[in-house]
């Protein structure tokens, strides 16, 4: 390996770790769970109320479970099922995505995005 290789690797890793560290320090507990299908907000639920719901994505369904202040996708009929393997989310900004069904689930702090959902 040359010197430039090491600099490149260190630079990329440092940038990623700094961003993750900053995110961790500034993270705040989430309030709302926003579901978007194809960019449109379709659901806006409280993260505090337990529920199990089926999301109608493009070409398939995902089952979203909100329980004990965390949200996770427990079932999906897409081929890769990456969304099912993703960790449960609980902090503002955390996201679970199902690319094949164009579904994006995001936890938010519950201020501006919640209003956005009401307007919809």
């Amino acid at each position, binding site marked *: 390996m040359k010197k430039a290789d090491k600099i490149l690797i260190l630079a*990329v890793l440092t940038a990623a770790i700094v961003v993750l560290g900053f995110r961790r320090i500034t993270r705040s507990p989430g309030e709302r769970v926003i579901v978007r299908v194809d960019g449109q907000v379709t659901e806006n639920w409280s993260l505090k109320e337990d529920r199990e719901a089926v999301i109608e994505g493009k070409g398939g369904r995902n089952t979203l479970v909100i329980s004990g202040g965390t949200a996770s996708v427990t079932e999906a009929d897409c081929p890769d099922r990456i969304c099912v393997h993703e960790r449960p989310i609980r902090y503002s900004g955390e996201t679970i995505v199902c690319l094949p069904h164009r579904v994006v689930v995001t936890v938010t702090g519950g201020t501006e995005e919640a209003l956005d959902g009401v307007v919809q």
Partner: protein
Amino acid sequence: MKSKDVAEYGLMVALAMVLSYLEAQMPVFFAVPGMKLGLTNLVVLIALVRRGEKSAFCINVVRIVLTAFTFGSMSAMLYSLAGGVVSFLAMILCRRSGKFSLSGISVAGGVAHNAGQILVAMFALETSRLIYYLPFLMISGTAAGLVVGLIGGGLLQRLPKQ
């Protein structure tokens, strides 16, 4: 084009398709969309060093289109093309600078591949939320790129000279 060249291009495309297929069959260990090893980039790296930029680019695009038609879907092809083109640009820039070894070129390709795919997904899904995944993918892209680069370097030494 000599018949020997035709054979080598054909072999490379076939090998790249097999590696794409193998990678798609791997169970999901990584719970982040887009996280992968990028074994197929081995072929692209070797083509880049042995055959030059134009040939490597053609092999890559042919591989992506054929793989999508055979095993994938149209949307998978879009993501794959975006990742493939951005990754290729990053790799030829690094290679032209002359400052990087195969490992550095491969790391740049891996990280750029992930960044390109996130960008396309952000447009396709019309949400900037996906940027959330970028730091995770930068770390995995670096690790995967390094592994593939080291394997590629070892392979190149063992392949017969042309």
